């Protein structure tokens, strides 16, 4: 399988803290890939580097045959590489439908498209996706009034509305009750299979990531220490040491 995201020797440090140290990994197209590691191991920094939140110190990030490490955030997103946030980021004072409409990728994006009407058929699509994540009944409520878990689901639906090629999910199940987690896992698998979206998921919940991912990368202290199938990762001594301490 070909790689959709190719990261080569990426390093990033903040002052004296080395958050990422020459990380090289590749994510296969249309596959679910996991990224694990103890707190502070540099997972979110890597996400930020990929999305263009901050420039990287060295290395290259190649998405779908295009170098993205030098592009600004919106430009990366337009290529079809979207992320969700660990702390949910939604538009609190807009209702769910509006949150969805604004997330759709506009058909033409020139200077004069600023005052374009929002196409009506987007409404159906928005409602369909809200139903998919179980928020249909609450579609006219302000997104800020939803519970934390519901906001996470809304954020997922918003990302899907944009029809990305690849989604970076930062802890999609953090702070969500255990029964709902199963629902989210099902949704993510469906997203991957039906919509053909490549997923790269940061997750602390081992049960979740072991069930979801086909391939897992493990970071510790900014370095990539292991990669492989869930089974290999589970039995990797370096991963166990990183999590339990040696």
């Amino acid at each position: 399988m070909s790689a959709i995201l190719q990261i080569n020797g990426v390093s990033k440090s903040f002052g004296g803290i080395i958050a990422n140290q020459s990380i090289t990994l590749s994510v296969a197209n249309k596959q679910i890939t996991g990224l694990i590691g103890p707190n502070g191991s540099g997972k979110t920094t890597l996400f930020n580097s990929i999305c263009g939140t901050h420039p990287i110190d060295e290395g290259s990030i190649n998405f779908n045959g295009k170098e993205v490490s030098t592009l600004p955030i919106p430009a990366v997103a337009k290529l079809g590489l979207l992320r969700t946030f660990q702390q949910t980021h939604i538009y609190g004072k807009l209702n769910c439908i509006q949150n969805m409409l604004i997330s759709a990728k506009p058909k033409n994006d020139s200077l004069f498209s600023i005052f374009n009407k929002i196409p009506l058929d987007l409404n159906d699509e928005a409602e369909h996706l809200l139903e998919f994540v179980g928020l249909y009944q609450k579609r006219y409520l302000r997104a800020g009034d939803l519970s934390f878990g519901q906001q996470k689901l809304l954020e997922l639906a918003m990302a899907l509305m944009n029809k990305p090629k690849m989604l970076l999910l930062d802890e999609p199940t953090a702070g969500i009750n255990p029964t709902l987690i199963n629902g989210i896992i099902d949704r993510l698998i469906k997203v991957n299979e039906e919509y053909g979206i490549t997923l790269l998921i940061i997750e602390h919940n081992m049960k979740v990531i072991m069930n979801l991912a086909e391939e897992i990368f493990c970071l510790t202290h900014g370095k990539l220490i292991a990669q492989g199938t869930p089974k290999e990762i589970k039995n990797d001594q370096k991963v166990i040491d990183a999590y339990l301490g040696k």
Partner: protein
Amino acid sequence: MISNKPLFLILLSIGLILPFILPGFKLQLSIMWILVVLALTWDVQGGQMGYNTFGNIFFFGLGMYLCASTQIGMFFPLSEWTAAGGEKTFVHLPEQYFQGLTLGLIVAAIIPAIVAMVVGYGILGLRGHYFAICTLGLGIAAGEFAGGIELIGAGQGMTSPPWPKGLGDTELRGEFFYYICFTLMICTFLFLRWAYSTRFGLVLNAIRDNEDKAESMGIDTMKYKISGWVTSAFFLGIAGGLMGNMIGYIEPVETAFPGKTFGVFMVLMAILGGKGTLIGPVIGAIIFHIFKEGFWTFFLGWQYVALGALIVIVVVFFPEGIMGFLREKFPSKFGEVIDEKDRLSQIELK
């Protein structure tokens, strides 16, 4: 939403006949519509986009100076006009007056819009308090700057062209400017109503709620922020041009760039009515103007104390404004409903 056609038409016709119902208040009513424009255009940034600006007064004053300078400069040498007593030497003929006013208002609309684009490109990247402070400086600097330019009368100001003699009395002048101000207000309102119904409106709201998210979803927020400011500057420039003509005398700090009166009023009016709504700034501006004129009439000497008390009451009891207050009380009237079909169904993913 609350705005519907019959109500709008009734209000429109009231606005049209108002100068005949209250003939003594024509200037005050004209200024009221100017205030509505100020509140509406401030709300584009402060309400819809969540960027608190104190610098919008800059475009107001810029429009005022540009309009008057064009009106004069088209027919007479500007420097001689602004020299002591110069305005008495030169007299506009009626047709010169109207040609000048037309072109003056066009210039007063376009140049501030261009300036907003250039300045906006520089400072709209700032966020939150930094943006607010920066724009505050913009207004103050403009006042000082204008006070140093000899050509436009420097610190002692300049006279805008007086209403041409032999063209009716001051009553006609009052009606003339009333209807222009009213038209400007209606145009601003309708333009914003349309703009908020497009992608532009949604993106401004998205920037207000979470700019980081908007960027990470692939929206070029800068493009929308600049467009919003250009829109505001366009209408503010015309408002300034009209205001200069109505008052008749342009002074840099008190009339053109009055940061501590109009500059604060526009914020207050939008907040009073409910920022981030279309109708809120209109209601807020009208109520505010009535209160303000009342204070100036009945509490003369204490007017700023009364105004201060009003500000405190607004901020403490109506932090979300009148519209925000109503929305909190009657959310279902604003479309916030849970689908009745299965109100009880909580999220349950199976």
